[in-house]
């Protein structure tokens, strides 16, 4: 039956995060942005809380470790619940979800391709973080290879019981603080993706350094690092999935495809930020403009506000559909990309228009500081996890017959 009702658990999660967002997270959001850090005490408390919300409805776990393989006959609610949680949390603060301790974006490839021993070893360190918070990270992008993943140049060469890695990775979320990073390298750049190998490289491995910590336009509370590998010897046990996984061309890449499901979650986060700006603008209009007076310029403001609202709804409904499909194990690569592409655009538009609607107030970093912060935060949501253009390539390939590449 067609229905768009949250279940009890989802309603509870949404309310809890919304409450906490309003009362605890929002009031600190600007401080975190200025200090370029979310203080550890808060993260510790928040982590403990999220651990308490055990079971199917833990958005943190699903976001960090990627969707679990499930029985198609018994659809779970996990992806839907995660999307609802992600939107609410991003509404409170854009950076927080990316700062949460745990495997982060390193989780999905480890879950999808790691051997049981590797999963135990590398997920194991997150099991008890009562004393120390830990992070994982994902290192794919290089100065010369962003969307064109096949063009990575970081090399790996087998030498005895280890691989020797050389190269540079950039824009790595939590890269500096991570206990381990999933690093992609190539045995032979001419082989494209077939030459790729993925390693779990641990902090402190000789030849593995943290380079520059980036200064960014937005998401400033979140650490983005450059990583350098210089003759870094990585034990063969850290080759993700083990050597046999790379014997066939398909083995590794097929497994990697199973984490399409992070895209709708990023879409949900974008919608959360866009919604924050949009609601702010609604409040501003309600409090400051006298809409009952037939002033023609109000019509233009009203139109902008209404448009922002419906674009966000359009993005949310596609996001919900994509996660609903994921929960039912229906292939959703196209829908996941559509949600991400539409949400990125709609949320940027909402943040942009919110400033316009509030007028001069909108850009002041004292009175309405959150507005200018969201405007800075949101842009990257149309860039990371696949740019808007890359999403359109994914969609196009599933629309046109026989389109393999442009």
């Amino acid at each position, binding site marked *: 039956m067609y*229905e768009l009702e949250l279940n009890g658990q989802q309603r509870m999660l949404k309310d809890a995060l919304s409450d906490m967002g309003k009362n605890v997270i929002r009031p600190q959001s600007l401080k975190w942005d200025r200090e370029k850090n979310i203080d550890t005490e808060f993260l510790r408390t928040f982590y403990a809380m999220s651990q308490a919300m055990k079971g199917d409805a833990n958005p943190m776990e699903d976001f960090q470790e990627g969707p679990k393989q499930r029985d198609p006959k018994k659809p779970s609610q996990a992806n839907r619940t995660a999307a609802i949680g992600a939107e609410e949390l991003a509404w409170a603060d854009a950076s927080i979800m990316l700062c949460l301790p745990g495997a982060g974006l390193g989780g999905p490839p480890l879950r999808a391709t790691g051997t049981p021993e590797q999963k135990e070893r590398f997920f194991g360190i997150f099991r008890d973080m009562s004393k120390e918070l830990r992070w994982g990270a994902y290192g794919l992008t290089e100065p010369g290879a962003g969307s064109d993943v096949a063009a990575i140049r970081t090399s790996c060469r087998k030498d005895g019981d280890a691989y020797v890695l050389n190269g540079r990775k950039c824009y790595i979320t939590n890269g500096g603080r991570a206990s381990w990073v999933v690093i992609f390298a190539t045995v032979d750049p001419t082989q494209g993706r077939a030459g790729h190998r993925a390693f779990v490289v641990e902090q402190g491995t000789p030849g593995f350094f943290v380079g520059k910590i980036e200064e960014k336009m937005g998401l400033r509370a979140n650490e983005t690092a450059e990583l350098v590998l210089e003759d870094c010897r990585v034990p063969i046990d850290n080759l993700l999935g083990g050597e046999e996984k790379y014997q066939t061309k398909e083995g590794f890449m097929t497994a990697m495809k199973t984490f399409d499901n992070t895209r709708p979650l990023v879409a949900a986060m974008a919608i959360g930020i866009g919604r924050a700006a949009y609601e702010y603008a609604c409040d501003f209009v309600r409090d400051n403009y006298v809409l009952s007076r037939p002033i023609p310029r109000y019509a233009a403001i009203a139109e902008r506000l209404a448009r922002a609202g419906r674009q966000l709804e359009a993005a949310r409904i596609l996001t919900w559909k994509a996660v609903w499909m994921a929960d039912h194990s229906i292939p959703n690569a196209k829908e996941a990309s559509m949600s991400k592409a539409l949400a990125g655009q709609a949320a940027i538009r909402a943040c942009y228009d919110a400033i316009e609607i509030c007028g001069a107030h909108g850009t002041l970093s004292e009175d309405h500081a959150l507005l200018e912060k969201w405007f800075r935060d949101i842009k990257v949501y149309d860039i990371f996890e696949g740019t808007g253009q890359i999403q359109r390539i994914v969609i196009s390939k599933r629309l046109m017959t026989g389109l393999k590449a442009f």
Partner: protein
Amino acid sequence: MISFEPSEDQQLILGTVADFAKSALLPRARKFEAAREVSAEVRGAIQEMALGAAGVPESLGGQGLGLLTAVLINEELAYGDAAAPFGLPSFGPFTLAALELGDDAQQRALLEPLLGAAAFGAVAWSEAQPNRDQPGFVTVAKPAGDGFELSGEKSFVSNAAVAAQFVVFAQVDAAQGWNGIGAFIVKQGAKGLEVTGRHETLGLACANFGQVKLDRVAVGKADRLLGGGDFAAATIRFFAKYSLTIAARQVGLARSAFDLTREYCDMRKAFGKPIGHFQAVAFNLADRHMDIESARELVRRAAWSFDAKKDEKACLLATAQAVAHAHEVAMRTTDDAVQLHGGAGFMRDVIVEKMMRDARQMALSGMTTAQMDQLAVLLLTDQALDPAVVLPTPETQSVFT
């Protein structure tokens, strides 16, 4: 629970309607356009399937399947020919006007001929000119004897010439402005009622848009529709639901135009490869696909909100967002469909040019994007829904009903 899967019953109906639309409507769309009506044969077939009655409560002789089912049916029919539903009895605004504005007895009296004998009904709302002296309609309902006398001229009325009955809106209390309007049942052939001329329109040729002239048409007290007490709210609800039906047709139309265009871009070669293999073309299609899929789900969501008896404001907001989005999406999609067909798209041999005209015209049926945005903002900012600001009166863009 969040679920995007229509019920088994709905899927069954949808399958049947989709097949019918593809086999019986799509190939005849040009024929209907030339004849400026849906053929009696096709009208009969749809009557037999009782599709128009899907959303009407069972107690009134309908199937009681709710607004969502009605919306799904409209979407599928429009995939075949979006103009066709405008030329079918019981698919027009009249059914919804009867349901939202009439009391039990009136509903029965108004709907029986529609559902039983396949007679048309029409809603006379718009007027060609705004009232320049005061807010409100120029057409008046003057108390006379036990009832009223209606005088004035109504425009943009679909199926005016073929309707057996009308719901006519008129000014009852001039001093009250848009809060002083009323709706009345008028029968075709009533003394003083004249259907004058049929509008030549850009699209939706089967709709038979016409004008209605009223010269002291006498109606009884019982012929006044009161909308269950809150007439303004009922009228807004009527326009919301009717517009949502139109939005569903926009979605069906856009899907149809998109599918034709995608096939064309697969097949048409330029510079040695299918044109769809160029990013400029493929990205355009990707954008329209996102548009259509989101519009489709927003329309369903709004219909579901009514069926699930959500708070009225939430229903209206969901509707406003869905309708405004669907209108824009259908216009963008059909425009791009013509564009991507190149010169061929401009020729009447290909149907996308008709789709572009139909989408443009549909965006002026029920409430427009601008009117829906206005409604949404009043809801968002907790303001009263003043009928003068919310209804598609002649003081704003004129609309077809």
